[in-house]
């Protein structure tokens, strides 16, 4: 009887640890630098709220072939808040995909990256951060265009006047 009890207990333990998080409820918000005036580098933030049936998990994020650490914020109830953020130069537009893995997934990815293999594990969930590289400055300043327009008008008038005086 005791043995059975111990077996059940061990099984339960095993299941709970091996289960990880199969069906997380995820809410995500993202941010990326839209206006270059307000940031010297392009910034990407993905904030997620994960409810893993009350389980406490730790996440890792795979972004562009690199494993980034994910920070955990305050826990309210069963929902845990996580954040991944990084900075880049103001280069590319386009969305960035952030894939979230738990500890096991992360270690397998680390192994794959070390040996240069392709990453095959599927993430727990993934988030897309849309990014548009925009700057406040226009390519051709309006003042310049205004000057050109003014000169054009003056030139046309001058031509007409010369014609009249001929």
């Amino acid at each position, binding site marked *: 009887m005791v043995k059975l009890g111990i077996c059940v207990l061990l099984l339960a333990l095993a299941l709970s640890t091996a289960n990880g998080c199969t069906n997380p409820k995820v809410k995500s918000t993202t941010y990326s*630098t839209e206006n270059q005036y307000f*940031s010297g*580098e392009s910034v990407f933030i993905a904030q997620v709220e994960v409810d893993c049936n009350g389980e406490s998990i730790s996440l890792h994020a795979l972004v562009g072939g*690199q494993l980034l650490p994910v920070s955990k914020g305050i826990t309210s109830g069963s929902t845990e*808040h996580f*954040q991944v953020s990084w900075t880049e130069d103001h280069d590319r537009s386009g969305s960035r995909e952030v894939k979230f893995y738990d500890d096991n997934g992360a270690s397998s990815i680390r192994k794959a990256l070390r040996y240069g293999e392709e990453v095959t594990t599927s993430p727990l969930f993934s988030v897309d951060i849309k990014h548009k590289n925009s700057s406040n400055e226009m390519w051709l300043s309006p*003042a310049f265009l205004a000057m050109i327009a003014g000169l054009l*008008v003056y030139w046309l008038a001058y031509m007409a006047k010369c014609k009249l005086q001929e």
Partner: protein
Amino acid sequence: MLKVLAFCLVVGLCLPLGHGGANLIASKTILNEHMVEGKDLTIKYSIYNVGTSAAVNVLLEDSSFPEEHFVIEQGLLTTTWDRIQSSSNVSHVVVVLPREAGAYNISWARLTYTSDESKGMTGFTSAPGPVLVLPFAEFSRKYEGHLMEWLAFFTMSAPTILLPFMLWYRSYSKYENMMAKKQH
């Protein structure tokens, strides 16, 4: 793509902390070129572990953006990391919006962590210091391209140019027609 901060650690004349512990140094910088009220203010925290062992249970707390002056747009101001390995770094970004224009003093954030030998440490990030948040009107006047203003200007000045032009053109076209007819 991402800046691989595989940094080179240089220790000066001083000895490293303890015997093989974690040592976190952190910088808190403002990435903005211009700080404008109601617009994004981007703060980047970079934590570097220059010690010889991993830092565990790292807690970053930043209380320098009180709710009455700043709206948190994105990012967590209080956040933890399980481990920061030695010779590695972590970056964290928070975006806030200043509610009003004026001078603010952005101070440090507090870092608490445990080095591998169960030694608790408290550290402080660098502080960006006093910053000036511009009112939106001033920023718009100085830095933004004034397309709308130019369009308004041309719309308003168009009558003074177009009206005489129309008058002239009317008589001119009539004259041209007359000359053309006469030649035939």
